[in-house]
């Protein structure tokens, strides 16, 4: 069942990407490109989110009412679509983060037993 394995992996990655996006937006509204750059910079160039993953995720999150968007002018007068967290997005993010922390804690305990 090759397909199933692939889709589980996709779900895992997607969840992570969603969390990274929402985390970035926690600091304020940002456009798609800015989000991608922010994730890349903050991960020390380790995570490079491609447009082909980023924009579907943004639109999906907007549809789920976790983020909202509006068109604004950027610093250099470029018209761009800015995304921001909605209250339910904020709640979702908190839940995701604590789940993630738990996972990280669990994994590191397994890897470095006390």
């Amino acid at each position, binding site marked *: 069942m090759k*397909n199933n394995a692939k889709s589980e992996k996709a779900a895992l990655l997607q969840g992570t990407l969603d969390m990274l996006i929402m985390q970035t937006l926690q600091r304020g509204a940002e*456009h*798609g*490109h*800015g989000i991608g*750059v922010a994730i890349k910079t903050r991960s020390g160039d380790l995570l490079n989110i*491609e*447009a*082909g*993953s980023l*924009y*579907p*995720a*943004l*639109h*999906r999150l907007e*549809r789920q009412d976790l983020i909202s968007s509006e*068109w604004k002018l*950027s610093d*250099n007068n*470029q*018209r*761009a*679509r800015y995304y921001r967290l909605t209250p339910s997005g904020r709640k979702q993010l908190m839940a995701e983060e604590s789940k993630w922390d738990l996972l990280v804690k669990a994994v590191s305990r397994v890897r470095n037993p006390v």
Partner: protein
Amino acid sequence: MNWKRWRWTYWTDLFRRRKLARDLDDELNAHVQFEIQRRIGEGQSPDEARRAALRDVRSLDSVKEATRDAWTWTSIERLMQDLRYAARTLLKTPVFTGIAILSLALGIGANTAIFSLVNALLLRTLPVSHPEELVLLTSYSREYRVGDFAYPDYLRLRDQTQVFSGLLGAGSGNRMEVDLGNRTDRPQIQIVTGNYFTVLGVQPLQGRLLVADDDNAPVAVISHGFWQRSFGGDPSAVGKSLMIHGSLCAIVGVAPPEFHGDSAGEATDVWMSLGMQQAVTFSRFDMRKVRYVTWANMIGRLKPGMTIEQARAEVAPLVAQIHESAGTSPDKDYLHHIVMEPGGRGFAEMRERLQAPLIILMTVVALVLLMACTNLASLLLARAASRQREIATRLAIGASRMRVIRQLLTESVLLALIGGAFGLLLAMWINRFLLNLVSQGFVTITINLSPDGRILLFTSAVSVLTGILFGLTPAIQAVRRDAGPALKTTSRTIAGRTRRGWLRNVLIFAQVALSLVLLTAGALFVRTVRNLKTVDTGFAAGNVLSVGIAPHRTAGPAQEADLAARLIDRLSAIPGIRSATVAVNATLGLAGSGVYGLEIEGYTPKNEDDQRARANWVGPRYFETLGMSVLQGREFSMADTLNSSGVVIVNQTMARHYFGEESAIGKRIRFNKRDHEIVGVVRDAKYRELREVSPRMVFFAFLQYPNGVRNVEVRTDDNPLAFAETVRSAIKQVDPQLDAFEVATVAQRIDRKLTPEYLVADISGFFSGLTLLLVCIGIYGTLSYSVAGRTNEIGVRMALGAKRSSVLLLILRDILWTLIAGLAVGLAGALAAGRVVESLLFGLKPNDPVTLTFVVLLVAAVALLAGYIPARRATRVDPVSALRAE
């Protein structure tokens, strides 16, 4: 996401679809711009930065597509894609698509059409309030069904029972000439009791309907249709009068458009009150007073809460009492008991005539639908198998299984829907054909035959389900299989032995068996019609024109005899007319008469029935005109008059019954207090029905019993219909008040009699022929596929030296056992079906060996032929190229 919100976003998204797409374009452009600026900021040249940025976004289109997938509304877009793809695929194989749609259309169309007729004539209730409360009362004599009631008995049943809130009486409808002031028309007229509309619970559209007091008044209610046709829907029609046979009748109201009368399929134009009865029928007696004329058909409305059982319990003793008090006179003994049944569907005459044929037709078309479905199934199976490669390819390039299955399903459903649409068109066409066919035979058939929505839905659902079921099974099989092997090679396992091969054989088996049953039934019905048409009628009616005369005012026996004589003289004088005569009952007409209490010289009757015979009152040269042979003695002449001694002519059966080998000539029959000498014996003939076994028949001289000319019979030199107008106007010249309402040849009368048989024979014949075609297609399609799948195997066999004939056998062997099993089961089914329809057959047994042998051979031959063509193709396989393909 809840449903309401989903729907809301769905629609807003549909409307905002373009804006969303534009926004996405803008958003991605902005992304590229930001990226370029970032790269320039990092020190790249503008050109370099642009190229890199675009490379980064890679194909903008794929980003767009991926993003669009996040929008829910793409499900409808995907459906459109699937539909477009399905349409393209279907168009790529026009033969498959055409056959599938055609067989579906036939199945759906035929069922919808026949069911519309069944619904209109057999199932639909009258458009009246609470039809379930209505009860139909039918009178029976000791031996046979009479149907209607004498008015005095109607009154007793109406007034001396408690179960009914009302009991109506209605005569049968008749077309009669009425004068509308500026012109004449010939509406269907029915005499009804004053409470008719009250009991049915019908409300007037204009004016008022009849009331109880109208029983003595000359008033009428007209139908909505007649109001539109004859008065252009003018409200002032109410208050106008129409004249019938010289009597005026006031129109008091118009019935609502949906109400056509009390019988399915028969539409009444004018309902006249009892007060018009004598004027309409020219009776010398008042139908309201005598008990020897039965005319009132009865429908009662049960009081709320009453059941039909309670009604039976109350009415039965009353009827017994009426029967007791009637005495012993045979003609008063019509009412022995009654049968009561739910009457919501109205009077049953048409229903009873057409019930058996319609049920048979419904069965036939249901089987046709079954055939169509099996056909579709085997086509889909063969197709899906041949598409394994395509499906494997689509899976390999990343299509999800669900997506492929949905695609295949879309195709099946699209097919079923197109089939359904064509079926609807076909249904309308068949309906028109059916209506024409049925209307020839009956006075009027006015039924709403618009294709019935429910059955259309039902048949479409059946075919969509077939499509899904047989489209899905191979689809699932196809996607479940590992994509690899199917891609690597087109050759499959030995196709005939796989599980799907087994399913295909079952389908072929079912088709062969079903078509054998249908063809046998079709052949039996077609041969029945041919037997009926070639049956010896006992007369030579080729050039006979038969004219029905409406009842008219008779001044007295002498004047009526004079009128008949003048008619005969006038018509005989027309060049081209060989002879002309009069009669009371038309040969093979709708009416017949019987006489009771015959006293036959030298014969002791065994019982009351032994004193009965069928009778007709005929004029001079009647037998010459109709072409019936006079075996002994003479026929009537102008000399047999009121003043001469009584004479009768009997048929062979009657002569043999009463006198055996002795000659009947000169024997006396006493009837109606008069003595009649038998002056002639004529050959047996069919008098009312083509199926009848010759009854005892006695002919009286019309000129000795001149009770009103009802029929004029004319023999012409050639084409009798060419004389129709001449004869009609000659009759008007003799007496302007004579109304020649029907001019028909005896051949036309026979056609009319045979309407139910034609209906069954035409339709079952047509569809059984089609099933043969379906079998052909099924076998051809299956074997073609199996041959294509075994090309390699055949190539190997031939390379190893197999002969062509053995390859042919190899392929045919696949279906041979299926075919034999299908024929055997089909034969058993045909024998069983034959027994069911036995009563409708004529001149042959349901197990008629000639028919059965013929049908079995036909199906076998057609099946083998359909199999032979692809099998022969297999023998043409070139071993070298077949092996190279491997």
